[in-house]
């Protein structure tokens, strides 16, 4: 038992110390973090087309104050909020800017309703105009209180604008009924496909490492020295398990580093990621006026919905089942990769044997798109039960929620599956590693399997 541990240790340490492992460990999380961050940037800075914005100003202060720019056009609406929203949805309008009436003094908040995520240029343009207007209003109100002579009043109005008003904009995405659900589905789809592809990628990446490791031992002829100390089965299993741990280490490092990078990014640019679900607050400050904040509680904007959706997916289940299906799928295929490595003399000879391994994996990836359309259907069920396709297909299904019975059945069959392939591979392996210069084909391998029993 301690010998297999030695083998695992060697397989693990030699790989983890490699430069390629370290490079992969660094590049992977950067790419994954970019996957989170870049779309947010793109959404905010892209779209050059003209945007028409309806303005529903209950205060009347901003009437005709919004000037059209090169790509932003304003028109004023004089109905109530609900019909304005309906109107916006029916028309080509980009967004609806709603400035609610305030009780006390100046208007303190505004909301942008839109059926897409409004981009940051639009928001900052509106913010600029509004803060300018409100600062002017504040100035007039305060100066009027002083009852100055007209001349003094003019001078006072020219007092440099020291009253800084900080503004944050709320954006609210309006969507029709039932479409709210769609965001959840989209996210599940993305997560499902993403983890399915990741499993596919991991099985191939680390399975090929097993195969190359076996070929290396065979061609360097060290295998005969090692199998005089340990059983061939121990060597094979030690290699497979050692590389599995390399895979797990890589995966965990990726997760930790990705979250770290996204976390750092959030800390540096908090407004870019987080504040899309907050209210537009126009805060009164300066000149002793009471801070007046109005909060808008209706928060159904896009990002918050995504967050909700993310929260609705059980990440613990996702990560645990990912680890299980990664290990299970890898062990199932890893044993076969080891068998192939043992049967050939060099890597170029592996191709004829790679086909039966590649086909079910590619097959699962292609069928994943049908599974995702109907994650509860019979195709999804059967593919997620069969051990050769279940690692990918089950990962595609899991974000949609899978009955415990299916999960249990699939996991048990996967365990039986990899025990089976390991048993079969061991028979090929122990004969194959000591065979040199033989033209190996399926018939020969079949003989080895029969011979071993």
């Amino acid at each position, binding site marked *: 038992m301690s*010998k297999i541990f*030695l*083998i695992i240790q*060697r397989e693990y340490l*030699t790989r983890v110390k490699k430069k390629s492992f370290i490079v992969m460990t660094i590049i992977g999380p950067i790419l994954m973090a970019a996957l989170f961050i870049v779309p947010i940037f793109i959404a905010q800075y892209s779209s050059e087309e003209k945007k028409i914005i309806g303005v529903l100003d209950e205060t009347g202060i901003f009437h005709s104050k919004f000037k059209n720019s090169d790509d932003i056009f304003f028109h004023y609406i004089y109905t109530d909020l609900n019909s304005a929203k309906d109107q916006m949805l029916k028309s080509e309008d980009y967004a609806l800017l709603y400035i609610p009436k305030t009780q006390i003094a100046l208007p303190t908040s505004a909301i942008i309703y839109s059926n897409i995520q409004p981009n940051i240029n639009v928001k900052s343009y509106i913010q600029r105009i509004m803060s300018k207007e409100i600062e002017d209003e504040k100035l007039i109100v305060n100066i009027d209180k002083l009852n100055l002579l007209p001349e003094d009043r003019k001078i006072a109005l020219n007092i440099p604008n020291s009253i800084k008003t900080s503004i944050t904009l709320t954006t609210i995405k309006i969507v029709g009924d039932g479409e709210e659900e769609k965001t959840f589905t989209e996210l599940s789809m993305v997560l499902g496909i993403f983890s399915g592809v990741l499993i596919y990628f991991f099985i191939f990446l680390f399975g090929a490492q097993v195969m190359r490791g076996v070929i*290396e*031992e065979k*061609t*360097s*002829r*060290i295998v*005969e*020295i*090692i*199998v*005089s*100390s*340990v*059983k*061939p089965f121990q060597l094979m299993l030690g290699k497979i398990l050692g590389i599995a741990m390399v895979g797990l280490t890589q995966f965990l490092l990726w997760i930790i580093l990705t979250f770290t990078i996204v976390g750092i990014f959030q800390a540096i640019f908090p407004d870019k990621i987080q504040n899309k679900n907050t209210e537009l607050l126009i805060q009164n400050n300066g000149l002793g006026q009471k801070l007046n904040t109005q909060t808008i509680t209706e928060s159904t904007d896009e990002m918050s919905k995504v967050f909700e959706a993310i929260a609705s997916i059980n990440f613990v289940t996702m990560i645990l089942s990912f680890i299980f299906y990664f290990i299970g799928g890898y062990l199932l295929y890893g044993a076969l990769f080891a068998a192939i490595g043992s049967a050939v003399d060099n890597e170029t000879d592996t191709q004829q044997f790679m086909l039966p391994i590649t086909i079910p994996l590619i097959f699962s990836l292609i069928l994943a798109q049908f599974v995702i359309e109907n994650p509860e259907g019979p195709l999804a069920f059967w593919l997620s039960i069969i051990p050769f396709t279940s690692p990918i297909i089950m990962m595609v299904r899991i974000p949609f929620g899978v009955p415990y019975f299916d999960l249990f059945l699939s996991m048990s069959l996967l365990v039986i599956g990899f025990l089976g392939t390991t048993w079969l591979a061991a028979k090929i392996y122990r004969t194959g590693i*000591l065979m*040199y210069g033989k033209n190996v084909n399926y018939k020969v391998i079949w*003989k080895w399997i029969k*011979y071993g029993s």
Partner: protein
Amino acid sequence: MDIFTAENVTKQFANHKALNEVSISVPKQSIFGLLGPNGAGKTTFIRIINQISAPDEGQLFFAGEKLKPKHVELIGYLPEERGLYKKMKVGEQAIYLARLKGINKSEAIKKLKFWFEKFEILSWWNRKVEELSKGMQQKIQFIVTILHEPELLIFDEPFSGFDPINVNILKDEILNLRNNGATIVFSTHNMSSVEELCDHIALIDNAEKILNGQVSEIKNQFKSNTFEIFFSGLNKELSDVLNPKFQIIEIKNIDDKNSVRIKIKEKSSPNELIQNLLPHLTINSFNEIIPTMNEIFIQKVNENVGK
């Protein structure tokens, strides 16, 4: 006492029989030569001793006990086709291979340092194997094979790849190991090294053992009672004076040195031959022809082909 015994070992591969009822006994503290032409079944037999493969029939004993997996730690094996992990460092790799044979890490380091110093290769410790020449790698493999002080050592063509100086170092080490109590089985085509080192041999040909025993006995068994005589001053035709009890095999005359090989038939002796010759010539030397292992090998294998 025999350290290793094989009884009626048979191994059948898909298309041919690799070993057929082979029985061999290796006496303790001997150097045992396992000889045979290519493809005779030597490597298969060695793999069976190392429990890399199992026999189809027959039994194997190690020091009187049935051969079991635990015995691998008492056996050291240097295969004919040998290699190391190219990307691993020499020291690291040697420790790994030693630990696979059941030595703990600190002891492995201590022993390795001793042997590396003895072979003057300590400076290679942190180098990658791929940076070393083939001969250098062979030295490391030799050290790794003997490091765990096995009772039984199996060397398959140990001298291939070594220069003559290193061959001698290796031979000395093999003799040292034997003198310190180890038993060595070695397989080779190099018959001169068999003469030099082995005290027992087994000859395997075509899956069967065709010759087995102590080297000195085998040689006696194969000597044909032939003598080589260097002489001068012959006054008559040798064939005319020779008694019919004796038979001339070969007469040579090189650089004015005359020699003759004469076979003594039954019911006679070397003394009688000398008496017969003395009146006619001056004997410069008189030697019995003892067959070399090489000749015995060729003779036996050729006989076997005839069968």
